């Protein structure tokens, strides 16, 4: 059992932070790696990239958006409650290297995953400009942490309620116009990663993206998480979750993420009706 020791609600209660006791995983976890969580006996195995890990405290932190029944069940866990199973750390860690100037682009809960990478990139000596975005000010997460982890932080909202009025890609383009950037790291919704990659390709800037396809085991056994990268099939769980953003077939990924769409909707609706 894996006990929740800290719980926070963000983004109007749609995004939840759980800090969880998992000493063995915390001892090994590195930025960019993920875990698989299962809430109880009948629960689904849900992969989430870690937002934080603390080897000394023996805890890991995940930040997730409530999008279906499984995450809705996660949300019901209070401090002191436990996840039945957590498996990890899985996937390859981010390659942290001193490259010069880096732009970290985050959207939605992707910001949570981006944060430890941003921090590590800065700590190793890169100059890090971060761009984070949300639909509106109230939905934005981790602004303070991202500010501390970056040399320069830009914020965007779709509705203009805070920071730049518009998409992260617009701010990114401005930066790429003005200065030479050595690498871009983009983590967020698939369309965001797709458009970031399209732009950085124009400027020939290497781009890292972190993918979160449907998976079951997370150890390379099921192949459910296959993505096409550079025309070849890769398993996101063991070959990733990070890939060269210019090589990923985002359209295929978006379709594949819809595989269980109807089942998920029905399951979530039934759960919501039951809860109310």
């Amino acid at each position, binding site marked *: 059992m894996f006990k929740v020791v800290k719980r926070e609600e963000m983004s109007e209660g749609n995004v939840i932070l759980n800090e969880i006791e998992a000493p*063995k*995983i915390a001892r*090994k976890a590195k930025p960019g790696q993920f875990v698989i969580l*299962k809430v109880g006996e*009948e*629960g*689904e*195995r849900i992969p989430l990239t870690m937002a934080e890990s603390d080897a000394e405290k023996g805890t890991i932190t995940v930040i997730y958006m409530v999008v279906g*029944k*499984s995450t809705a*069940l996660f949300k019901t866990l209070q401090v002191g409650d436990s996840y*039945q*199973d*957590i*498996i*990890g*750390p*899985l996937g390859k860690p981010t390659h942290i290297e001193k490259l010069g100037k880096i732009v970290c682009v985050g959207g939605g809960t992707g910001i949570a995953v981006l944060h430890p990478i941003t921090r590590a990139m800065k700590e190793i000596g890169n100059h890090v400009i971060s761009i984070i975005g949300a639909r509106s000010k109230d939905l934005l997460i981790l602004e303070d942490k991202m500010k501390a982890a970056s040399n320069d932080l830009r914020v965007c909202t779709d509705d203009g309620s805070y920071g730049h009025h518009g998409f992260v890609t617009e701010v990114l383009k401005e930066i790429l116009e003005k200065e030479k950037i050595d690498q871009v790291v983009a983590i967020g919704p698939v369309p965001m990663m797709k458009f970031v990659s399209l732009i950085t390709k124009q400027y020939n800037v290497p781009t890292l993206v972190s993918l979160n396809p449907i998976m*079951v*085991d997370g*150890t*390379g*056994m*099921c*192949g*459910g998480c*296959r*993505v*096409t990268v550079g025309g070849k*099939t890769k398993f996101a769980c*063991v070959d990733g979750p990070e890939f060269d953003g210019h090589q990923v077939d985002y359209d*295929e990924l978006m*379709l*594949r993420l*819809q*595989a*269980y769409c109807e*089942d*998920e909707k*029905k*399951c979530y609706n*039934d759960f919501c009706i039951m809860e109310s």
Partner: protein
Amino acid sequence: MTEEETKKVKKEKISRVAMPEQEPAVRARNFLEVPTGYTSEMAIQEAARCMQCKKPGCVAGCPVGIDIPGFIKLIAEGEFTRAIRHIWQKNSLPAVCGRVCPQEIQCEGLCIVGKKDDPVAIGNLERFAADWEREHGTGALPPKAEPTGKKVAVVGSGPSGLTVAGDLIVKGHDVTVMEAFHKPGGVLVYGIPEFRLPKAIVAQEVNFLARLGVKVECNAVVGRTVSLDELFEEGYDAIYLGVGAGLPRFMNIPGENLIGILSANEYLTRANLMKAYLFPEVDTPIPRAKNVIVLGAGNVAMDSARTAMRLGAEKVRIVYRRSRQEMPARIAEIHHAEQEGIEFFLLTNPTRYIGNEKGRLTGMECLQMELGEPDQSGRRRPLAIKGSEFELDCDLCVVAVGSGANPLLTESTPDLKLNKWGYIEADEATGKTYKKGVWAGGDIVTGAATVILAMGAGRKAADSIHEYLLRGW
């Protein structure tokens, strides 16, 4: 055969006692076990067919060398408790083996009675003894040696890992089994369906080991959560790797990433480990399709096809590039699949998948094949017939064309020597790898094989580990 034995065969009048089964039409739509087991009377009657050969072929055909005539004699005498104890001396998972071993090419294939008549139903009798013990036994444990103070880590809780754990715990060692999934049992839990091997039976076998003192640690991905060297640092004296093959093979033809194409590993894991056939009572979904194609003709393909039928498919077809003779599945599985209405498209090979604008599978293009000269496997090589392309409709395709070596553990352990396919190099007689204190066995050494062969490898490795712990490498 001696003259006396031949006479006995001639005298033999009782025919093989068939194990009762659920009716095909009924069972094709439920997940309950298909054969329902012998009654005591049936078992005694079948056991009486055994001729108690002096040089039994059956024992030679058993990868773990069970004294088959010995336990059958005890069943014939109604001594069921003694029969199961007799089996346990060589096999710690009889309820499993009785159900999933390919007896026709092992013990039963070498049974003398089988030369003139149907062979003695050794598998059915083994299953009977194990089931009888589970239902009526006292639960008494076999004796255990004094603690040796040595610690062994067994990586993987499939058939070979459980065999090693069972063997070493009774020899007095401190054994911990590590499993990457959230439930122990390996392929017995995620791979083999409920209707062929009820999960309660696997749980019972694992529980038996736990009662003997084996510690089972789930959610432990060795290679990620902990490395082999760290296990040694933690005080383990020996490590056994029985992690299975664990890498799904795909066809590598256009369109393979369409929605509705799943590896058998994924399909069966959803159905078996995650119990997705109960969705939405459980939270893991599984595609429920009307028109299903399964590629391949091994046991995993039969399991996938029969699972699809039970999930409500109208049509389930096995597409296989060779002919019926080369199908690698157990005869019983092929027979059961046919009875349940599964169709076979033999000498047929897909060349590409066809999908719609939503990225969902709608069919596949296939070629007809003919058999040429035998290939390296000794089976006749399938050759495409030019211009024979045709299309098959389907809305789900399960790819069951074998598996490869999962590199997760081996990549993180560079001092393990691998062969060119990525499997671990291990001594055939002992299971010793090139890394000191580390043994390996089962599919990660041989490539995908059977439960019983993995157990046989586990048995040999356990003996070698025991010797090492007492005497050194």
